[in-house]
């Protein structure tokens, strides 16, 4: 009965019902693929205001650069107990097109350093990599600054 949804430009969005949870060891292969693609990995959480603010920039990169072998993955650091009540409804409400996974691993001191030696653990943070280059940013992005970084990988 709500078929007439004129506002929705992202009509292909399919509501999700689950988000896959990873330990660091399970996530690790996703952070070091050498398959010719450039990966933009954003570490975020629904409760993190600057993260939510910059999400549209990552969504736009996914859309604008999909022909150029760029893949965006949003790694959520939401509280595991909030996945059903907050994370999944948030993804559906915002109609996020990028792949979202949950990182649930207690040994933060180990995996924060392993992801990047310069990362203090503050959110948001972004890793961009391909088989030739790797860069890590503990900062907020605007679309233009993110696009500039992504272009330097292509």
């Amino acid at each position, binding site marked *: 009965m709500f078929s007439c949804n004129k506002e929705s430009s992202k009509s292909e969005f399919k509501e999700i019902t689950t988000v896959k949870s990873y330990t660091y060891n399970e996530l690790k292969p996703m952070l070091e693929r050498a398959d010719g693609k450039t990966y933009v990995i954003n570490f975020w959480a629904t409760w993190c205001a600057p993260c939510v603010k910059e999400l549209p920039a990552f969504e736009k990169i996914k859309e604008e650069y999909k022909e150029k072998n760029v893949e965006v993955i949003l790694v959520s*650091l939401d509280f595991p107990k909030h996945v059903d009540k907050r994370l999944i409804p948030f993804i559906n409400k915002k109609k996020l097109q990028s792949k979202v996974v949950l990182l*649930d691993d*207690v040994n933060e*001191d180990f995996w924060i350093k392993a992801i990047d030696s310069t*990362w*203090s653990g503050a*959110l948001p943070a972004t890793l961009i990599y391909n088989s030739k280059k790797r860069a890590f940013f503990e900062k907020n992005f605007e679309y233009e600054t993110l696009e500039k970084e992504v272009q330097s990988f292509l």
Partner: protein
Amino acid sequence: MRYLKSILVVAVLAIASAFTTNIEDSYKIGDTVEDFKLKNIDDKMVSLSDYPEAKGFIIVFTCNMCPYSVANEDRIIALDKKYKGSGYPVIAINPNDPKAMPGDGFAEMKVRAKEKGFTFPYLLDEGQKVYPKFGASRTPHVYIVSKPEMKLEYIGAIDNSSRNPNKVTEKYVENAVDALLAGKKPTKTETRAIGCSIKTL
């Protein structure tokens, strides 16, 4: 002339670096921490020198709005209760600029401290002048200082499971303070945890 030029270049670089707050310029383990004077939620000013009896301090940069801070509030209260008596009180500092994060204003700090029954000072880093000296980058971010030299002994997380207190297997801050109270050096001096970025304009 070339000599003069190089002096000029060095001087310009020195001036430039003096005006940038850089993480590299902040306190490192073993450094002497300067005292500060910040407004507490009871409207009185608090300095580390107000604690002549203390053997050191557990300084925690934390705030109202960050869920990781909120998830750690009970642990911060427990640290103060456990160590205040033996000489390591908790001093909490909110580093966020309320203009960037309205829920972290001074009035809101008073409300939160009352709700949770904070047993320690909860100070406002007015003008955001203290946290850069410590190189704090997130909330919560803990710094342990020992007296009498005001030496920085530990930087990092409270324990190894910030999101879930039931999964803690290593209590970094407790281990460090226990070592210091026993006259030893902490074995782990720097740890990391996920947290909220510090909000400034």
